[in-house]
């Protein structure tokens, strides 16, 4: 059995680790709340936008636009959305795994490029010697996480749209963690470009609208907007997922640390008792020896 001092040091270190993990859990819980609120705030906007687009496209025959052009797929761009920080369980690893699967299976015959949002994707892909952010792609997108709002996300969407129109890529896929609830995240590949036709809504009022300046122009205005919102939504989902994942991971870590501490304390008490018993035996032995 390890000696008393060793066990004592280990208990102290487990204790301080436990404090850190439980603090991180608490921080994530409060950040998660805020991230969830951001999603809730965004939802009415996204829904309304989708509704208007649906209304428009229903009465519009030619949905052929520069963002919905279906070309022969040659160059694929994967947008891997991860966090900047670790200690959040399989959150980042799952994204990387999904990217690798897409490269090997789905797009094995295409040129696949990767754009990373978040430091972890960049680092992890680099360590697997997969090249990221080649060419004109921005490589400083981890700063998105410093303040998640629409103004910082919109330019990224614009970059992607421009690259698509310039035919640098024929397909743009977002790979991110969809937020189910605090404990469950789902890795989702989602097509951003070309635009999938919006589902027409069952709304008879659509035909009665007055359009100003005209339908085509409004659609041309709305499509980029909806793309930006789609990217923004995936970033928000990712953000909430990150904190959810970290909360769960840290909760488990705290539990494990508690168990470890209990075990160690038991060991420590046993060792201490054994030492005391040994000492008493010695004293008794010594006293016996003196008597004789």
């Amino acid at each position, binding site marked *: 059995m390890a000696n008393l001092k060793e066990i004592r040091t280990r208990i102290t270190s487990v204790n301080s680790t436990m404090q850190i993990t439980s603090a991180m859990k608490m921080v994530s819980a409060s950040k998660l709340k805020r991230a969830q609120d951001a999603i809730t705030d965004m939802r*009415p*906007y996204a829904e309304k936008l989708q509704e208007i687009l649906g*209304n*428009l496209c229903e009465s519009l025959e030619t949905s052929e636009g520069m963002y919905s052009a279906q070309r022969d797929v040659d160059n694929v761009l994967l947008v891997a959305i991860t966090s900047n920080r670790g200690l959040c369980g399989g959150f980042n690893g799952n994204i990387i795994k999904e990217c690798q699967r897409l490269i090997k299976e789905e797009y094995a015959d295409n040129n696949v490029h990767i754009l990373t949002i978040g430091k972890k994707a960049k680092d992890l892909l680099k360590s697997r010697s997969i090249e990221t952010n080649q060419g004109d792609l921005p490589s400083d997108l981890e700063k998105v996480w410093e303040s998640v709002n*629409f103004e910082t996300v*919109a330019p990224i969407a614009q970059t992607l749209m421009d690259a698509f129109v310039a035919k640098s890529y024929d397909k743009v896929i977002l790979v991110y963690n969809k937020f189910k609830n605090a404990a469950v995240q789902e890795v989702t590949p989602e097509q951003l470009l070309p635009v999938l036709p919006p589902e027409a809504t069952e709304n008879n009022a659509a035909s009665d609208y007055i*359009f100003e*300046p005209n339908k085509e122009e409004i659609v041309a*205005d709305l499509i980029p907007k909806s793309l930006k919102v789609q990217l923004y939504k995936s970033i928000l989902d990712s953000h909430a997922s990150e904190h959810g994942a970290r909360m769960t991971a840290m909760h488990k870590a705290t539990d494990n640390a508690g168990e470890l501490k209990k075990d160690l304390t038991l060991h420590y008490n046993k060792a201490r008792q054994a030492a005391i018993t040994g000492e008493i035996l010695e004293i008794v032995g010594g006293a016996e020896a003196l008597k004789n």
Partner: protein
Amino acid sequence: MRIEILTPDQELYSGEGSAVYAPGKDGSLGILENHAALITSLRKGKVEIETPNGRETFDVDGGVLEVLNNKVIILAE
């Protein structure tokens, strides 16, 4: 009539109002009670609304305005 002004980050205004003045792409437009159904895109400028508590102004950087059944929704940016 009911007025809602939404941005992706938050809800700027939601409540009753008697008039909306918005910078339409083809020129400013004013919307009063019982306006016909309308969809129009906006350019950068100021949206003003007449609320029961006086006039309120919001800066928008483009957006879309929809009027339907005496309800005005502005998706601003």
